[in-house]
């Protein structure tokens, strides 16, 4: 929706660009704002990661540049900006240069699809949920290109691993969201969110599809190449993986995009499973308790209550997002890295079958709600116990057996 003030502004400037183009213009304006917001989030996240890891490993973390090291990331960014841009012989110059951009751009376009409030959404697509994953799988092309164009064997291995990993983990990622889409019957991200406008025990991640949520969490960490799935850049094996040969701003683009992807994935986790920008009791707190109206009439400024609501939504959204970002950092500080064969095995042998069973379960649940026949409830419980439970039990037994066999060999 193009806001009235933009139309008035265009009229005042005697620019008649038609409703479609002005919609595009509004999208660009919103996206620029969101991209700046996202960039700020990334800068904060880099510092947060270093502080969290420092806290997990009994260190202090950056504390020299600015208060609590707040300016550390900026200082690092400036340093990277002035670094020499090294190109070695035998590199494919074109691919080497555009690979960071190919990695970086889709991640930032993702920001345009993430609703920060019910109004702050640059591109309200009816098929948003699908488009989000289409975008996030483009960025892996950048990694593969970087690995190929670097003329470095470590980079090549990193790129190949990344391709294999992306293929393996896109599937459970999309399948887990498919459960949500199946239940809500829409791919529009905002409609999915509206379906979760309820107290927190009705958020999808808690009551409807906790299994989906767990699959999504695991796959999203694999999707953004973080420990324990950071095989493409496994620093103890591949030196730095696909970005070994990158320096200066090209490296900074990879670096930024990785964090931006982590932010986007955490935001998507919140959107699909944890009620997005809604407060834990549904809606916004200030509207539910009438604070916005009270404040608006007290200050006597129309529209202030709306603004308060918007700010509260942004706050809830970011707060929940940062909780999931923290979980990713926590995992990084705790777990060792998987091997490529384990990584593939975990996805194909465990996550994908599990998400298929889960989709079946959600379909039954939907049918149960629609028809209100209790037989679907029984079926649902049956699938829960024998499908999900039995599968997890079998797999864990299989894994234990395998280890035991190796222990005895």
């Amino acid at each position, binding site marked *: 929706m193009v806001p009235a003030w933009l139309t008035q502004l265009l009229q005042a400037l005697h620019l008649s660009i038609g409703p479609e183009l002005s919609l595009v213009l509004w999208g660009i304006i919103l996206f620029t704002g969101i991209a700046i917001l996202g960039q700020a989030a990334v800068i904060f996240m880099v510092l947060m990661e270093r502080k969290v890891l420092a806290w997990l490993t009994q260190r202090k973390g950056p504390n020299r540049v600015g208060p609590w090291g707040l300016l550390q990331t900026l200082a690092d960014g400036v340093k990277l900006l002035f670094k020499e841009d090294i190109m070695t012989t035998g590199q494919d110059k074109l691919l080497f240069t555009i690979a960071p951009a190919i990695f970086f751009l889709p991640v930032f376009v993702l920001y345009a699809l993430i609703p920060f409030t019910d109004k702050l959404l640059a591109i309200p697509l009816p098929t948003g949920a699908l488009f989000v994953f289409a975008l996030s799988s483009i960025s892996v092309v950048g990694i593969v290109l970087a690995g190929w164009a670097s003329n470095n*064997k470590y980079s090549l291995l990193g790129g190949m691993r990344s391709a294999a990993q992306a293929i393996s983990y896109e599937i459970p990622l999309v399948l887990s969201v498919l459960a949500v889409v199946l239940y809500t019957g829409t791919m529009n991200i905002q409609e999915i969110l509206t379906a979760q406008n309820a107290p927190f025990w009705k958020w999808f991640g808690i009551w409807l599809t906790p299994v989906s949520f767990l699959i999504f969490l695991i796959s999203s960490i694999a999707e953004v190449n973080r420990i324990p799935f*950071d095989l493409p850049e496994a620093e103890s094996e591949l030196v730095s993986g696909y970005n070994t040969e990158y320096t200066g701003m090209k490296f900074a683009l990879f670096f930024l995009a990785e964090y931006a992807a982590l932010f986007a994935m955490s935001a998507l986790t919140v959107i699909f499973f944890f009620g997005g920008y809604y407060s834990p009791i549904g809606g916004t707190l200030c509207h539910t308790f009438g604070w916005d109206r009270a404040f608006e009439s007290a200050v006597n400024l129309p529209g202030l209550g709306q603004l308060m609501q918007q700010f509260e939504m942004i706050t809830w959204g970011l707060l929940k997002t940062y909780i999931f970002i923290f979980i990713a950092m926590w995992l990084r500080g*705790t777990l060792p*890295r998987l*091997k490529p064969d*384990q990584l593939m095995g975990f996805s194909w042998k465990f996550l994908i079958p599990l998400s298929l069973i889960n989709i079946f379960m959600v379909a039954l649940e939907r049918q149960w709600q629609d028809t209100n026949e209790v037989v679907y409830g029984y079926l649902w419980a049956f699938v829960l116990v024998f499908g999900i439970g039995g599968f997890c039990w079998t797999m864990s037994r299989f894994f234990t057996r395998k280890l035991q066999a190796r222990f005895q*060999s």
Partner: protein
Amino acid sequence: MEIPGVTINRDLDTEDMVVNIGPQHPSTHGVLRLITTLNGEVVKDMEPVIGYLHRGKEKMAESRSYFQYQPTIDRVEYLSSFYDHYAFVASLESIAKLKVPKRVEYIRMITMELNRISSHLLWFGTFLLDLGATSPLFYAFREREEIFKLFEDLTGARMMYNYYRFGGVTQDIPAGWLDQVRKFIDKAPKMFDEYEAIVSKNPIILDRTVGHGLMTKDQCMEYGVTGPSLRACGIAQDLRKTNPYCVYDEVDFDVPIATRGDVYDRYIVRMAEMRESLRIIRQGLAQIPGGDTAQVNAAKKAIEDAKKRGETPEELNPDWLSMGQKVNLMVFKPPAGEAITMVESPRGFLGCYIISDGTPKAYRCKWRGASFSNLSALPSLMKGHLYPDLMAIFGSLDVILPEVDR
């Protein structure tokens, strides 16, 4: 070449890739170069290239007096240099037939065992770093730092101690040092529990280590593998037990062994060894002749008083009062002869062979480092494993490059 769970389509026209790992690489623990032939991610062949850190330690011994050579020994193996010093000093002592006081031997044993713990802690941290877990390194360093603090109080240095002397040590332990050691070994088991809780049962670590890098007893014999890697194969060969040196025959300890000889077993054996070291230190602290420095000083004062009264101090003069025979270090000339001392360093057998021709310089000095033999077993262990296993297997051997190249 067949590994379980990985099938390779041999009809495809593929090409092997030769990856030159190192000399600069995060996981080679120094400057080791591994020319690795990879088929996909499967290691087909591997050839270690060493010598990047060769400093001619053995030749240096021939151009310096023994005392001048001593500080450079620290650099042979900088993670557990008390062992190198012990091997060197004990060889000379047996050539020169110097008598070493009991108290000195106990100090040496306590410091050596503390050094074993610090060395294993570093191994623990870097091994898990190779597996991709970053945090354990910092926790291991926390405890290692406490040991370094103890060493700093004792010798003045954190890593390059240069503390042992021919027939003794440079000086007696500082007052209260034994209590600090006692405090450390009291809380150390709790810290080891902490590590084991987060690492030993971790499914990812189990899956990456159990059954990988299997080493047979025959392989150990062929390559001369010693130390925890040997004991992980089920051979209870520990020089401290089999031919006791220092005062290891006066303390009671077990030699932890495992049976399979894989990466996980090497990990388990090292973790158990740290606890055994704590046991040895605890007994050493209880048995050290003379006890704490305050008691030693009091005894010294009593002897002084006795001398003043005109009594015979010989009877009152136990050997723990001295820190060793007075040797003129700069012109220390052992008689012509040769001797070799083998000690059980954290990495395995560490030997120092010295031929003396009666001059202040050695005629020949030969070091036998455990890392060299252990490293030579790596290519045979690696065949058919995946590339990431290289880091786990290489890390589990606990190779330290300065000791390989010397």
